[in-house]
């Protein structure tokens, strides 16, 4: 507005983001103003107070700063851009020290999730590297790093270092490389409480002893724990997604310790494995990633209502931001849905949920995330959101309208027919086999990429 349109502007954010403005090449060069934090959720009276109260940055009344912004020359010295100061030792060895001191160094530098790590010695990293056919210096991918408004690139060796730190055995390494190849962060640069799920399919699950049965989402299994942990360590060590640094999640999420890492119980499932739904062959090993905000348990079985009714009740109170849902269900639930309710395929039940999970339009539009992320689509006339916006307040709408956005995964040990339901969206799947040291039985093409579908659009939430 200032530069291109010549309009004096008073851009606002809250005091919580002063440091963000300082690091931003655009925001740092315009005269930003600040309110106290937060704005969201404050009453009219409180916001009237913000207007006449002091700008936490200048100590002057906000309204006076606005008027001055419009009518007085802006002092360039007061513009905030400083740029990020980033110190990196990529590919370097650390100064030799005792194990205790090095553990403390990793903690102080933010190279941990808070738990002790396995120190990545050259010998350990070399053992990890021997578990893949990929060269140590091969670039696996890149991720965006918020404070530098830039990206980081990471190699196979960088991933091996993280794998060692997480406590991985070398045989887990191809799975961890596949996770890294997704180029998706486990932790988000967001003020909201994000979380994610890692799902492993195919023969590698049993080869490395992953738990897909009783307590698959509980602590206790090394592969589940370590692979999920490695993903979060990539976020903290490479992208500096630490609380108050590049991550501002107000409450955070304990799910980020291992990101719901588990394997699908393909043996006990009456349905097609998840990776086969995504175009892979059953004998391929694949990791799939889901992300979102809400992950809810079913407290008990569906004894008084049908399974479908219970799930629809839960979905009717979850903000359906992207119309996505992921249900992680015990094999017993899948069996009942098939044998008692006639859903012969996962797709059939996804279709049913898409038609029967409903909520009043007023509730839908009352969700904060829906208001600021979905309403712009409705205002552009994009369906079905435009129709949802025209609906009467008490009219029931079907916010999970697209069955292809409803993912069903079978996990668990058949001890109780329960499930977990979420608005997690499917982000993408990555081949594990292409990273193995030896070609797997599934790898029958020359370039190792046959059978891998085009990546699903990963920008579902971006």
């Amino acid at each position, binding site marked *: *507005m*200032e*530069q291109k*349109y*010549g*309009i*004096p*502007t*008073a*851009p*606002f*954010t*809250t005091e919580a983001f002063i440091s963000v403005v300082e690091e931003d*090449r655009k925001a740092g*060069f315009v005269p930003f103003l600040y*309110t106290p934090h*937060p*704005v*969201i*959720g404050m009453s*009219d009276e409180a916001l*009237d107070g*913000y*207007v006449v109260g002091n700008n936490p940055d200048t100590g002057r009344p906000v*309204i006076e700063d606005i*008027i001055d912004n*419009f*009518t007085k020359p802006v002092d360039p010295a007061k513009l905030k851009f400083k740029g990020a100061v*980033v110190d*990196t*030792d*990529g*590919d*370097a*060895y650390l100064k*030799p020290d*005792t194990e*205790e001191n090095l553990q403390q160094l990793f903690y102080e530098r933010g190279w941990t999730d808070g738990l002790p790590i396995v120190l*990545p*010695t*050259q*010998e*350990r990293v070399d053992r990890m590297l021997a578990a893949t056919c990929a060269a140590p210096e091969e670039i696996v991918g890149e991720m*965006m790093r918020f404070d530098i*408004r*830039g990206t*980081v*690139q990471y*190699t196979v060796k*960088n991933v091996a*270092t993280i794998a060692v*730190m997480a406590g991985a055995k070398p045989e887990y390494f191809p799975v961890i490389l596949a996770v890294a190849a997704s180029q998706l962060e486990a932790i988000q640069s967001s003020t909201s409480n994000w979380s994610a799920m890692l799902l492993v399919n195919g023969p590698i699950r049993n080869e490395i002893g992953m738990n897909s049965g009783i307590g698959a989402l509980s602590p206790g299994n090394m592969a589940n724990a370590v692979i999920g942990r490695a993903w979060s360590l990539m976020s903290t*060590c*490479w992208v500096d997604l630490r609380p108050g640094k590049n991550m501002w999640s107000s409450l955070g999420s304990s799910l980020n310790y291992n990101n719901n890492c588990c394997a699908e119980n393909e043996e006990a499932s009456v349905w097609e494995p998840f990776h086969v739904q995504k175009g892979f062959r059953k004998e391929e090993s694949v990791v799939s990633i889901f992300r979102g905000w809400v992950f809810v348990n079913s407290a008990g079985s569906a004894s008084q209502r049908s399974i479908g009714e219970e799930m629809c009740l839960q979905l009717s109170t979850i903000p359906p931001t992207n119309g996505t849902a992921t249900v992680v269900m015990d094999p017993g639930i899948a069996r009942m849905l098939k044998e008692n309710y006639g859903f012969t395929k996962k797709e059939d039940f996804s279709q049913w949920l898409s038609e029967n999970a409903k909520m009043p339009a007023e509730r839908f539009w009352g969700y904060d995330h829906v*208001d*600021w*992320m979905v309403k*712009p689509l409705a*205002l552009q006339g994009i369906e079905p959101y435009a129709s949802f916006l025209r609906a009467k307040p008490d009219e029931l709408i079907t916010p999970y309208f697209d069955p292809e956005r409803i993912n069903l995964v079978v996990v668990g040990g058949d001890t109780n027919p329960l499930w977990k339901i979420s608005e997690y969206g499917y982000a993408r799947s990555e081949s594990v086999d292409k990273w193995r040291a030896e070609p797997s039985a599934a790898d029958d093409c020359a370039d190792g990429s046959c059978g891998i579908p085009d990546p699903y659009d990963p920008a579902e939430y*971006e």
Partner: protein
Amino acid sequence: MAIILYDNVLSPEPHSLVENKGIFSATALAKESLAERLDTLEGKTVYLVDIGYGGSYKFMQALERWFKRNMPAVTTVRKRKPGSSFMDDSPELWEEIKAKGHAAVIGVGG
């Protein structure tokens, strides 16, 4: 007695780091390029642009109330920015402000 580790320990930091690249990259703006300021707000039109982030519309309502009460000679126009709060540009709205307005408050992130 503390024992120094014999083996080299690697830094876990990534291979390379490229600043100002990707979806949030931007060219640094020249400080001198800010718009010319107004001589007064009297008789002017101020756009109050709600970016759609939670609570923004209520803050703009609060500003609107203040101007009506305290500076009635200022016309306020409250608008919601179309598109995503963070990602989409809204040139039609900016053109409207240029054509019909004299100043703009835009917010509130956070």
